[in-house]
C-alpha cells in the first residue's frame, strides 16, 4: 500500500544561526561591527550647559525666618543700644 503525504515534507530544522557563526566567524565580526551603527539610532540626552535653577527662594526664606525669629528677638533685646 502506498503512503500518500498530504503536505510537503518539511525540511529538517537546523540551527542556522549557530551554524553560521560557528562555520563563518566573519559574519559574527560583521555583526559586532554593526553594533555602533545600531546604537547611533538611539536618542541621546545631553546635560544642559546652563545649571538648572529652581526658584524656591521665597519659600526657603520664610522657613528660615521662622527658624531665626526667636534668636533675632533675643539679639535685639541684648543689643538694645543699637536697636
Amino acid at each position: 500500500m502506498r503512503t500518500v503525504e498530504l503536505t510537503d515534507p518539511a525540511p529538517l530544522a537546523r540551527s542556522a544561526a549557530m551554524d553560521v557563526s560557528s562555520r563563518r566567524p566573519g559574519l559574527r565580526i560583521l555583526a559586532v561591527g554593526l553594533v555602533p551603527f545600531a546604537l547611533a539610532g538611539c536618542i541621546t540626552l545631553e546635560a544642559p550647559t546652563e545649571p538648572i535653577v529652581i526658584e524656591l527662594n521665597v519659600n526657603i526664606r520664610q522657613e528660615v525666618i521662622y527658624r531665626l525669629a526667636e534668636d533675632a528677638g533675643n539679639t535685639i533685646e541684648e543689643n538694645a543700644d543699637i536697636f
Partner: protein
Amino acid sequence: MGDFMTRTMTKMMLAAAVAATALGGIATPAFAQRDPAYAAARASGEVGEKMDGYLGIVGAETPELRRIVNDINIKRRAVYAERAQANNATLEEYALTAGCQAILATSPGEKYQAPDGSWQTRSSAAPLRDSRCP
C-alpha cells in the same frame, strides 16, 4: 579668743566683698542704652527701621544723621554676622529676620519701612510687614 576674732573678721570681710559684688552687679545696667543722639533722631522720625534689618534716614540726609545711621548699621551688621553664623544662616537672612522683629518692636510715632518701600509712622496698630515675617 584672738583666733576667733580673726575668723569672725575674715567672715565679715568676705560677706562685705560678696555684698559689694552684688551691688556692683545691680548698679551696672544689664543692657546698654541708646546713644542720646540716636534716641533723639529715632523719636523725631528722622531715622527709621528698614525691612532689611538696618536703620535708614527717612527725610533729608544730613552728615550728622548719616554718621549716626552708619555707626549703628556697622554695629548691627557685626552682630548679624556673628548670630547668622551661629545659626547656620546667611547674613541677609538673619538681617531680614531682625528687621521683622525690629519693625515689630518700634514704638508709636517711630518710623518704619513698609513692604512697598514707603516710610510709615508706627501707630498703636500692628505695623505693615513683609508677608514672610513671623
